[in-house]
């Protein structure tokens, strides 16, 4: 059950998140009932969508970017290995690969319980998501379409 304090804290965090986008003049969509924000940025190769979801029950914020393509089942093992190799070297956040849904997303999150979360913290999370998604979105797609062996995939990221 979501109580009044949970909602109060969640709305405060939501307001902070919105202000980050406002101050940077980023075009974005927000849903004040769902406490979510979405925005699309131009990446080096593919567009990078940024989504922020406040979760009042767990006092948490998830910032994530879904890759704008599906991974076909025959690339399942290659992508699972690629995601594992990439995640191991990331300083923060991780790529999630749902092979049943054929999708990849990059995710980072933060707990805010009884705390004052700054715009800086959101800036940091948005940057991490943008940079990581932009760095690897084309590489995962390339690997999925390639006939690389698993060893070649490991070498590809070395």
């Amino acid at each position: 059950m979501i109580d009044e304090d949970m909602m109060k804290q969640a709305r405060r965090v939501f307001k902070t998140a919105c202000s980050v986008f406002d101050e940077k003049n980023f075009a974005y969509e927000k849903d004040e009932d769902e406490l979510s924000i979405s925005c699309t940025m131009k990446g080096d190769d593919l567009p990078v969508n940024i989504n922020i979801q406040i979760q009042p029950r767990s006092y948490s914020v998830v910032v994530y970017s879904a890759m704008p393509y599906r991974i076909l089942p025959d690339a399942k093992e290659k992508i699972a290995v690629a995601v594992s190799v990439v995640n191991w070297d990331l300083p923060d956040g991780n790529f999630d690969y749902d092979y049943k849904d054929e999708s990849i997303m990059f995710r980072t999150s933060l707990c805010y319980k009884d705390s004052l979360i700054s715009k800086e913290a959101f800036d940091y999370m948005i940057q991490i998501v943008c940079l990581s998604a932009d760095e690897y979105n084309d590489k995962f797609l390339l690997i999925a379409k390639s006939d690389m062996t698993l060893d070649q995939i490991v070498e590809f990221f070395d």
Partner: protein
Amino acid sequence: MSENMNNDEQNVFELLCSYMDENDIKYDRKDEDNAVFLGVNGDDLPMGFGIRVIDGAEIIKIYSPLPIVFKDDKKVDGALATCFINFKLAFGSFQFNYKDGTVLFVMSNSYAGSLLSKSIFHYIIGAAISVVDRYNDRLAEIANGDMSLEEFVKSCSED
């Protein structure tokens, strides 16, 4: 609330230690790394956690190496199993080292420019322990060949 809040590396570390002390949690402290280490008895496998306050990135990082190694013939299963779990998580992830077959649970929380309360530690440490305890035994069973990937997926889907 203001008595418990702070926002730089040293203060965040002291807040963490203060939370541990107030809750009678036994830990080892390594001040030069702004890190604490603790052991937890889980349902199945023992768990060890490191919690570090990292300057520069301004993040609190919790990590737990699992006592598991996936041999070469099981590495793809290890990659697929950790991917399957990670997609279900809101906090943290199981990082699978494809080169040596080891697994590390990692969770981080930014404190950049923020004023944290001790409640945060209660949540994130509790979440980390709960997630590792929920999945470490099943990951071990796949690594040992006692459970197939399909059985693992079915088992996790029923959680």
